[in-house]
C-alpha cells in the first residue's frame, strides 16, 4: 500500500473508533505496516489536520490518537446536542408514554402499577415536553390527577388522532403471521 492509502485507512480507523487508538492497536489491524511507520503517519495526519485549519484535530491522549473537535467549536456542539436532545425520548419516557397513550385518561398510580417503578419524574418530563397533559381529576378519594396525551404527541408520531394508533391486536397479527404464507 502507498503511504497516502495507509494514511487514509488510519484516518478512517480513528474516525470510526470514537476512542483513542494506540499505534499498537492500529498495527493489529494493518499487520504488514511496521509500528514506526504507523506512528510517523499518525503525526503527519495530525499536522495535516492542523494545517488545513479544519473543525477537527487529532490529539494524542491516553496512549493513543483520537480525532476530536477543538474547544472553539464546543459552544456550537452543545447547541446542536440541545436541539437533538429535545427531540429524543428515553426508554422510561417511552414506556410511560405508551401506557398513557393506550390507557388514557389515567392516574399516576395506574402507570406505576404497570411499570412497577415510581414514575413521577418521567411524567414530569413528558409534561415538560408537552407530550402529556393534565385533563382533570379522577372522582375517587384523594382526587388524583388524570393524564392524557396531547396534540404534540400525535404530531411527533405522525398521527392524525389517537384512534390512528395501531391496536395491540393488529400488531400481534403481524407478528404471528411471520413466516407464514411462504413455502417452507
Amino acid at each position, binding site marked *: 500500500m502507498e503511504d497516502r492509502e495507509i494514511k487514509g485507512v488510519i484516518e478512517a480507523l480513528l474516525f*470510526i473508533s470514537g476512542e483513542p487508538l494506540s499505534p499498537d492497536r492500529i498495527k493489529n489491524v494493518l499487520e504488514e505496516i511496521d509500528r514506526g511507520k504507523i506512528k510517523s503517519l499518525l503525526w503527519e495526519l495530525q499536522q495535516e489536520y492542523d494545517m488545513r485549519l479544519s473543525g477537527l484535530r487529532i490529539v494524542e491522549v491516553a496512549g493513543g490518537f483520537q480525532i476530536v473537535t477543538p474547544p472553539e467549536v464546543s459552544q456550537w456542539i452543545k447547541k446542536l446536542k440541545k436541539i437533538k436532545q429535545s427531540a429524543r*425520548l428515553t426508554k422510561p419516557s417511552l414506556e410511560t408514554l405508551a*401506557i398513557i397513550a393506550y390507557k388514557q385518561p389515567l392516574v399516576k398510580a395506574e402507570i406505576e402499577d404497570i411499570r*412497577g417503578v415510581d414514575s413521577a419524574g418521567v411524567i414530569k418530563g413528558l409534561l415538560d415536553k408537552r407530550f402529556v397533559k393534565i385533563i382533570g381529576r379522577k372522582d375517587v378519594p384523594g382526587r388524583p390527577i388524570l393524564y392524557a396525551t396531547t396534540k404534540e404527541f400525535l404530531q411527533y408520531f405522525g398521527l392524525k388522532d389517537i384512534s390512528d394508533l395501531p391496536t*395491540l391486536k393488529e400488531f400481534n397479527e403481524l407478528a404471528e403471521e411471520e413466516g407464514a404464507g411462504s413455502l417452507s
Partner: protein
Amino acid sequence: MTYQIKLEVFEGPLDLLLHLIKKNEVNIYDIPISLIAQQYLDYIELMKDLNLEIAGEFLLMAATLIHIKSKMLLPQEETVSEEEEGEDPRAELVRRLLEYQRFKDAAEELGQREEIWRDVFYHPHDITTEGEEEVMIEVGLFDLIDALREMIEKIPEKMSLEIIPEELTLRGRMTAVMERLDIAGPEGLTLWALLDKDTTRRAIVITFLALLELARVRFIKLLQVEGRGTVRVFRNEN
C-alpha cells in the same frame, strides 16, 4: 414434451409464473396458457409429493389458470357477449405479472445499492464526550407499541406498587453487574444476557436501575449497535 422442474423456492404464485415464462422463453403478452398452466400444476404436484406445505395462494392461482385456459378454449362468439369486446382472458394476469416484475426489478436495484452501502460506515451514535446521551434513543411509533408489548409480555403478573429497599439491593446488583462485565471482557454483554437471571419483575427493575446508575456514574457504557440492534453493556475502560 419433457422438461425438468428444479425445486426452487418461490415466494408466491406470481414468482413461480414469471419463472416459468422466462424458462420457456415465451412472450409475456401472449402466454401459451396450456403449457404454462400444466407446468405450474406439475410444480404443485411435486411439492405435494415432497410433502411440502402449499400456501393457499398457490392453489388459488392454479384455479385461475385453469379458468383462463377453459375460457380460451371457448369459441370466440360466446366470450364476446360476456366480456367487453372480447377482452383477452389473460389480460388481468398479464397486468399483475408485469406489475410484480417491475417491483422485482426495483428490488434488485435496491439490492445492488445495499451491496455498496453496507460497506460504508458511519457513527451509529453521536460521538460524545458527556456519556449520558448514550442512553437516549430516537423513537418512532413502532417503538411505542413495542415498549408496551415488551412490558406486557415480560411481566404478566399484576404487581402492586412496592417500595424497593434500594440501597442494599441496588448496590448489590451494581456489584454483580460489574463482576459479570469483568468476566465478559471488552466484548461486553447484551442487555438481555444481563437480565436473563432475573425472573421477577422486581429483579428486572432493580437490575435496570443498577445499569442506569452505573451508566450515570460512567462505570459502564450502554450502546445500541447500528441503530436498532440489541443494547450491549460495556465496562468503561477508564
